[in-house]
């Protein structure tokens, strides 16, 4: 049973078709990367999957519910419950410590729980940095806080927008390793990226151009290897 289904989804801005009749189905536990040149519709796609925007036509079915016609406030609720977001620019609130940034997501979702937030940080290897401010953390550490925040409410889909775009190679590897572990724990991961190496570690890769899916590549054959290659 697919956790996410896009059926004939189009998004039109004036005369521009940002997305043109997209059909896509993602199963629970999948790891999908979305690639494509600038202007191919990646951002629009992530906005729609992330419940921050609705398509002009077509249907988006998330966890069995059609969200394509939902109101803004309902979308907010659905996003909070089902989607964990990771940003290229981390977007941590600079006056809150790492653990507080994680707790913020709990706070908006249900109930802040410092213990749980600390455990989430431990998972990304940042327990000892929990009480530092973002300005005291390196880029990689900030991104790990961002991931911990995305995971804290156990979302059904982890949605990354160029999550390694601002990281050096070493940190990129750490983050990808975390994704790999999460995948093995059964988390559904969708990542938009420019970076072919990051795109290659997924099970499946789609390539967008001019709002259409021009390639849909099954990488399950190379899935384990890709990681090994990269790790080597």
């Amino acid at each position, binding site marked *: 049973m697919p956790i996410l289904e896009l059926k004939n989804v189009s998004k039109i801005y004036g005369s521009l078709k940002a997305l043109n009749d997209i059909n896509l189905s993602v199963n629970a536990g999948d790891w999908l990367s979305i690639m494509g040149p600038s202007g191919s519709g990646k*951002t629009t796609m992530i906005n729609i999957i992330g419940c921050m925007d609705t398509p002009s036509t077509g249907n988006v079915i998330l966890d069995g519910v059609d969200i394509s016609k939902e109101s803004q406030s309902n979308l907010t609720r659905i996003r909070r419950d089902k989607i964990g977001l990771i*940003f290229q620019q981390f977007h941590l609130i600079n006056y809150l410590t790492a653990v507080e940034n994680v707790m913020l997501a709990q706070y908006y979702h249900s109930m802040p729980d410092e213990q749980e937030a600390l455990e989430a940080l431990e998972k990304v290897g940042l327990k000892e940095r929990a009480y530092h401010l973002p300005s005291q953390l390196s880029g990689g550490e900030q991104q790990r806080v961002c991931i911990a925040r995305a995971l804290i409410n156990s979302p059904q889909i982890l949605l990354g927008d160029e999550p390694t775009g601002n990281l050096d190679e070493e940190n990129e590897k750490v983050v990808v390793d975390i994704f790999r572990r999460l995948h093995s724990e059964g988390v559904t991961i969708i990542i938009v990226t420019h970076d072919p190496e990051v795109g290659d570690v997924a099970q499946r890769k789609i390539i967008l151009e001019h709002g259409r899916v021009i390639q849909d590549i099954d990488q399950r054959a190379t899935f384990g290897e890709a990681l090994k290659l990269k790790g080597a």
Partner: protein
Amino acid sequence: MANNNKRKMYLRLITRSLIRRASRLITAVLAIAIGATILSGLVTIYYDIPEQLGREFRSYGANLIIMPSGENGINENDINRVKNLIGREKIVGFAPYRYQTIKINEQPFLLAGTDLEQVKNNSPFWYIEGDWQNVMIGREVAEVLNLNLGDDFKIQGVKFGGQAEASNQNYSAEENKTRDFGSQYFSEKLNVKGIITTGGAEEGFIFADMKILNDLIEDNFKADVIECSIIANASELENLTQQISKAMPNLEPRAVRRLTQSQDIVLGKLEALVLLVTVIVLIITMISVYTTMTAMVAERKKEIALKKALGAENRLVMSELLGEGILLGFVGGALGVFLGYEFALRVSLNVFGRGINFQWALIPVTIIVFIAITVIASIMPVRKVMEIHPAIILKGE
């Protein structure tokens, strides 16, 4: 327990946001405090103006004249009762006068026995050459008698109860002299300590302490008229005269229309001036605070979009901004109230040379007003952000 946790996180969010953005917040608190200072300061001054300027208007002199309604003068008992009726804190000056006809070089003059200190309070506009003390003479008198400061002059007159008799031409000069020195007459040498210039009738009098006059004529204290300078507007003074004449039928109080009417008009205009200025300054100050706050909040657009992306409902984001606004407004407002008092006090000391009454009600009013401004200023610009999709948090910018 669960709610408790949530409330704790809420407080944590607000205080963290306020404390860790300290440098920015100083700007905001400063803006609010300046606004609150001006508000509480100007309002304090405005409330104090009638009192303070009213006192200044007392420099025009006595505005209430009390005369005895019968033949008998006003005794000390009456004076105390009148003072109580008026209310001692309202009295700027209170000078009883007793007039006595005397002769100097066989020419008649009027000697006014009074309380010279009180006369000074009543009529600060008198110009005195020499000192303000026993005995002062009017400039007219000085010219007629050709007296200068430090000169001695001799006064003669009839004691109280004695028969005043004009110098009879039938008597010889020698006889006149003996008559003048008889038991019914007095004679005394006085020294000119001050010469009075006023441009008014006072220049024709000789002023001495009431006690000296009473000793000379050998009588108890008795005033022919009392001049009072009282802090009151026309209607208050009108009430006062009615009260006095009702409570003490032996007295006849009269308000000096020229001063009371004019004071009401001029003071009214000055009050209106300060009010209008206060209102304009306040409006402008509040708008300034508002724009400053707006600018401060606008820069948090991204942060709000992020919170929304994390699943925050508008209501929650709003309540955070509200909380911050309340805290900021409270701190700034409270700071401003006390600075404002200081400001009003300085102005009052500089202009009027007196302290100022603090309006306690201003503390809550100022704080509430500035909390309101801050909250409105924080929420208005954010409302627009609310309408924007959280998607701006992604790559854009």
